């Protein structure tokens, strides 16, 4: 079974999905806000895997060789945005921590009625 199994698009997509869902679970379940941020990073990574997998396995002549790396470009932009997000997000966390002496999401519940 292993023998005629080849690593294809769907395998990568499943890996991405798994990472994404783990990240999602982290976002839902963790109390520490930094852990939530880390989970988001996991999700972004999962998305990047998908981008690159599609870029790797789906291609046809019409796209032309010049645009061969469009998926890579998208992934790069994701990384850029993720970096910016981490920077700003951590700065926010530190500010919140400075004000509330807490990084617990449960304490940050003043977004209600």
């Amino acid at each position, binding site marked *: 079974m292993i023998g005629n199994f080849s690593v294809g698009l769907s395998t990568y997509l499943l890996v991405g999905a798994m990472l994404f869902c783990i990240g999602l679970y982290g976002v839902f379940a963790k109390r520490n806000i930094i852990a939530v941020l880390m989970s988001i990073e996991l999700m972004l990574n999962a998305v990047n895997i998908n981008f690159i997998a599609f870029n790797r396995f789906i291609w046809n002549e019409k796209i032309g060789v010049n645009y061969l790396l469009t998926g890579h470009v998208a992934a790069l932009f994701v990384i850029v945005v993720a970096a910016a997000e981490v920077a700003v997000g951590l700065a926010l966390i530190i500010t919140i921590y400075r004000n509330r002496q807490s990084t617990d999401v449960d304490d940050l*519940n003043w977004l*209600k009625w």
Partner: protein
Amino acid sequence: MFKEMHDLFQWAWLIPFLPFLSFLIIAFVTKRSKRLSSTISILAILSSLSLAVAIGLGVIQSGEKIVEHPAIVNVNWLNIVGLQIDFGTIVDPLSAMMLFVVTLVASMVQIYSLGYMHGDEGFSRYYAYQSLFASSMLGMVLATNLLQLFIFWELVGLCSYLLIGFWFFKVSAREAAKKAFITTRVGDFGLLLGMLFLYVKFGTLDFVALSVAMNTNIQDVAVIGTAGYVTVMAFLVFMGPVGKSGQFPLHVWLPDAMEGPTPVSALIHAATMVVAGVYLVARMFFLFDHADPMALQFIAGLGAFTAIFAASIAIAQDDIKRILAYSTLSQLGYMMFALGVGSLTASMFHLMTHAFFKALMFLGAGSVIYAMHHKQDIWEMGGLWKKMPITGTTFFIGVLAISGVPPFAGFWSKDEILAHALHNGHPIIYGVGLFTAFLTAFYMSRLFFVVFMGPEKKENHPHESPWSMTIPLMILAFFSVFGGFVALPEHNFASYIHYGTFHHEPIAWGLAGISVVAGLLGIGLAYATYIKKAISAEKVAAQYSGIYKLLKNKYYVDELYLWLIHHIMDGLAKILYWFDIYIVDGVVNGLALITRGSGRVLRRTNTGQLQTYAMVFFFAVVIIFMVFAFGEGQLSALNPLATLGGVK
């Protein structure tokens, strides 16, 4: 001859128009000048009187032709799909007679009011109302169709309202005015309905066209519907006269209407407006004639009942104007049952003579009240004849006329009514009428003897009224004496005003004798009681105290109505208001509360936990994703129109 006359009749519209003009002028221009206002008003009504006389003479000269073919002028008033109404004037003997009576009494009353209303704050306003009333009343008389008649009918009601409540600072006047308007409104409800049904069935409200349509289609079930239809319409139409002419059970407003100035009572609540109902029945007589005979019998019965009912109340009243008011009710009952027994002629004849002598008596009573400084209780008066000879004499003429003593006007008309009742096969009604005649003579002479004869009261310093008041009295007295002669064969009132084919009937002297005896008996009884004191009124009252109290309190009809209004109508109003506030509005406010409450509950779901929000959000995303991924083709089911079963 007829051609020229027709030219004259075309100007009949001026008769109501002149007083209306005077109303406008007084209301908008000369309000501040009392003298000018009264002059304009009197000039206008006198011009109308002379026109009415001219038209009356014209009618007499035209003779037979005008009886068969009334002179009608119509202009279109309203013309829409399903409703064509004309406005116009009809000149025939009936309307000519009414024109004459109305303008004559109105001019007398207006002249009389110069003295009676002298110095009143609202003098100009009074004359404005008087002019408006005269205009509306004359417009009603000249109406060529039922709607036009109804419009003026309501307008005279308005004037009556305004004039009863003329002294609006008096609470009693204010209440009486309101009562009059509302009570007649009840009758108008029926009249309005009857009118609508008539239009629906016959497509016209024009008197002539209606009469023709009814004559031709009376057997045609397809047009008329079932046989009872005309009868129902007749009853509905008759509701109007019941209210306006104070027939039982809607008579209650008329005695209270005496709160108005006395000349107003004379004009509106004795001579003219209250007989509008009689006039309407006369105009629409063809309707009642085509209806089931039951309808006419009902009218006769109700009229006779009202006659004796009101007369019996009048015996026990002390207020001079109220006695006259109940007497008016009683006489209106007379006119109604005259119509009911089928004699249009007798009814109209009595309408005319009654207008003369009742206006005379009201104005006389006004003169007395004026002299007594607005005292109205007859027991506070006495021996006034010596102090007020003209008022006393003319009043006496009125009493003799209403009691049916020959040769005064009332004798002829009352006799004719009674004779017709007997001849047309209504012996019970004849009996009631005769007894009423006796009662009438009794209470009228009672009034006269107590007020004008007997000992003088020291505290009173009466003196004769000014000329402006006594001259109208004398003129009306003249008509009360000689007005009845038009019924003599050589003048032939009946050949002009009649319904159906004309049969000349000679005066039945035997029957006349009986009614004269009844009248004289009444006078004699009153004489014995109140002058000779042979019979003690107090003792009789004490002996039959139950009946006396019943009569004195007008059979408690007012009390019954007040109870109904205050407990049933107002109670229902309160209940419905409660229902509105607490049920209808309660549902509304309840819905609002539910909205607010559910908001209060649902906001708990806003925990403020971003993770919860995100979870719900993602859950929804997953669901939508599933729909898109696996539910292909299901989406079109969400089209709302498809569910409504809409688009073809």
